[in-house]
């Protein structure tokens, strides 16, 4: 393009069309000079200005400005005037002409139509930006996904918002296998729409108010659309789905009768019921969150390109809001985990300090117990030996009797003391009950070179975890299993079953001869307690089991066959 041509083009685009002319007392126009090419959409301004109807002399502001100029006061007025079926906008500057007092004035008339169009377009853009702004503000006020989804639908369907009749939200699952219909809003019929819109018109609300008032409650009118949307589950494997296309192209689409659709797409469109659908993708930084579908089922208003553009822009902000709720949820879960871990560390540290103190005390106590037991054995042992040998010496017999009795008394105290010491050294951890039992049996069978008994673990008990000190568990179970194996004639003659019942791990030890007679001798041993070592061991085993909230018992549906029952409380997952 030549320089002259360029200048002319710039001039045509930037110079505001205007005209200079004179006006006499009879409002006749003369000396017309035109600037710019098109003035009020006509090439020649002369005809326009000479038209009798051009000046709106019935407009008092226009008349007043002209009169002021006739009285030598320059003035200015902005007015609009309808010519034919169009409205034009003008700025009129009136000023007195030198030497023409009260007979003629000069006028400068500028065409403001283009300014006005720009202003209207600008206002429209501001209004659209405001919709996004209001929605973003509402998004920022909540981290609840349901509220976010409701805000999206309110903004899409409300009059002061995007103004669609209905809106649907589909969200993808984590593995991106399906889109699930989550939430929808909008009337199911023209009658229902009339009812809703009537109630809304009685008390018109701004978009901000609508988002604030309705975001947390479900509308009674949305039942049908919500039933419809939640019944829809769309597989994402469909390569030609318009939902997937919208995601892949990262833009909003209009799906109408002109769209080339496959059978599944036709079926989905039919279910939704509208002739035209607007589909906008919900996309986060790295994945597909879902889609917004909007339509004008009731009004049948065509979906314009600007409607679509606004929906696309809005969907991007909505995607961020949904993504933020996901991130917030993940963050909250991590914070909770960290908090729990921190509490665990504090608890462990306290336990460690306590345990170290106890270990120190225990070691010292063990040494003391050992130092007492050896001389006690010697004193008591010699005393017992002497007692057997004494004849006809009642005084010495009485004295040695006292020594033996007191030695036995101190020994009993030491026995109890020892079992308490071993309990104080415990280090509790989470263990799988099945693993612990198998470990116990493996140790017993390897030491004694025996065959493993059958261990049957119920499906429900397979993941059962208990909190216990591993050494104490082995100690208790070895004593019980050993006693059972002695009666049954060996470890391999036992059968162990582990079940789960009412949050308890139930260990059944079955075997021949574990009958009622055995049960009596077993429990008698526990009651008699302190005398024999075997009894002491059973007592300590029971003490360990009870310490961990468990119990020991016997069941026998038949006289000859029965089972020992050991139970431990299972720990729940969150513990």
């Amino acid at each position: 393009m030549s320089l002259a041509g360029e200048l002319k083009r710039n001039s045509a685009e930037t110079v505001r069309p205007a005209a200079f002319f004179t006006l006499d007392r009879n409002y006749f126009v003369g000396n017309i000079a035109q600037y710019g090419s098109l003035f009020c959409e006509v090439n020649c301004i002369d005809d326009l200005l000479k038209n009798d109807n051009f000046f709106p002399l019935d407009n008092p502001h226009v008349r007043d400005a002209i009169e002021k100029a006739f009285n030598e006061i320059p003035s200015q007025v902005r007015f609009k005037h309808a010519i034919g079926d169009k409205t034009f906008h003008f700025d009129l500057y009136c000023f007195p002409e030198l030497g023409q007092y009260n007979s003629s004035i000069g006028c400068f008339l500028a065409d403001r139509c283009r300014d006005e169009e720009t202003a209207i377009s600008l206002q429209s853009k501001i209004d659209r930006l405001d919709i996004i702004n209001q929605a973003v503000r509402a998004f920022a006020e909540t981290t609840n996904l349901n509220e976010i989804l409701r805000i999206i639908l309110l903004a899409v369907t409300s009059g002061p918002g995007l103004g669609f009749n209905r809106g649907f939200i589909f969200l993808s699952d984590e593995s991106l296998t399906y889109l699930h219909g989550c939430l929808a809003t909008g009337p199911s019929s023209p009658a229902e729409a009339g009812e809703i819109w009537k109630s809304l018109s009685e008390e018109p609300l701004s978009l901000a108010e609508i988002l604030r008032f309705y975001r947390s409650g479900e509308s009674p009118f949305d039942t049908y659309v919500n039933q419809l949307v939640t019944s829809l589950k769309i597989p994402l494997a469909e390569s030609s789905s318009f939902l997937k296309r919208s995601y892949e192209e990262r833009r909003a689409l209009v799906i109408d009768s002109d769209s080339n659709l496959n059978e599944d797409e036709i079926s989905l469109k039919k279910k939704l019921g509208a002739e035209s659908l607007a589909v906008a993708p919900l996309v986060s930084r790295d994945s597909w969150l879902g889609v917004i579908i909007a339509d004008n089922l009731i009004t049948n208003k065509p979906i314009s390109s600007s409607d679509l553009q606004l929906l696309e822009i809005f969907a991007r902000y909505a995607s961020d809001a949904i993504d933020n709720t996901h991130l917030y949820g993940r963050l909250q879960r991590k914070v909770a985990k960290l908090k729990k871990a921190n509490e665990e560390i504090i608890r462990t540290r306290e336990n460690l300090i306590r345990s170290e103190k106890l270990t120190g005390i225990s070691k010292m106590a063990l040494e003391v117990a050992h130092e007492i037991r050896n001389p006690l054995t010697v004193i008591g042992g010699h005393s017992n030996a002497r007692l057997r040998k004494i004849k006809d010496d009642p005084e010495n017999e009485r004295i040695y009797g006292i020594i033996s009795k007191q030695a036995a008394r101190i020994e009993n105290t030491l026995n109890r003391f020892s079992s308490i010491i071993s309990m104080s050294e415990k280090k509790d951890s989470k263990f799988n009950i099945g693993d612990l039992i198998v470990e116990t049996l493996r140790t017993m069978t390897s030491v004694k070179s025996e065959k493993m008994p059958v261990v049957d673990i119920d499906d429900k008990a397979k993941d059962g975890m208990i909190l216990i000190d591993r050494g104490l568990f082995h100690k208790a179970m070895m004593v019980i299993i050993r006693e059972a194996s002695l009666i049954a004639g060996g470890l391999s003659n036992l059968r162990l079953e582990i079940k789960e019942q009412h949050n308890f791990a139930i260990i059944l030890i079955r075997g021949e001869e574990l009958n009622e007679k055995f049960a009596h001798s077993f429990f008698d041993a526990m009651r008699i307690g302190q005398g024999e070592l075997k009894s002491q061991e059973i007592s300590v085993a029971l003490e360990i089991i009870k310490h961990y909230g468990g119990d020991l018992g016997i069941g026998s549906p038949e006289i000859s066959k029965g089972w020992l029952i050991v139970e431990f409380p299972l720990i729940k997952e969150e513990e």
Partner: protein
Amino acid sequence: MKNILIVDDEEDIRSLYESEFEIEGYKIYSVSSGSEALDFIENNYDLDLVILDIKMDDMDGLEVLENIRTRTNKVPVILNSAYSTYKNNFTSWLADAYLVKSSNLSELKDKVRELLTV
């Protein structure tokens, strides 16, 4: 007559057990350490039973027990300790019995009789 070896670093305990088991009719040998016990076992094939203390100065009883078991499974061993806690140590399961020391020797005597009868 059955031969019994007593292994204990406490002289008074050895002396008590010697007198008590001799009355019962056994031939008693006693040593005061783990290494002496292993030497004795090495040179005496006619040993019938060992009463073994655990906590001793040079070599503990569990180590002695392991050594005995690598040589023979035929000689019964009774662990006899002032500590009950060694029962948590699985090596102690290699012994035929584990008895905590007591002034009442009847349990120990019963166990010796039982093992020697078998």
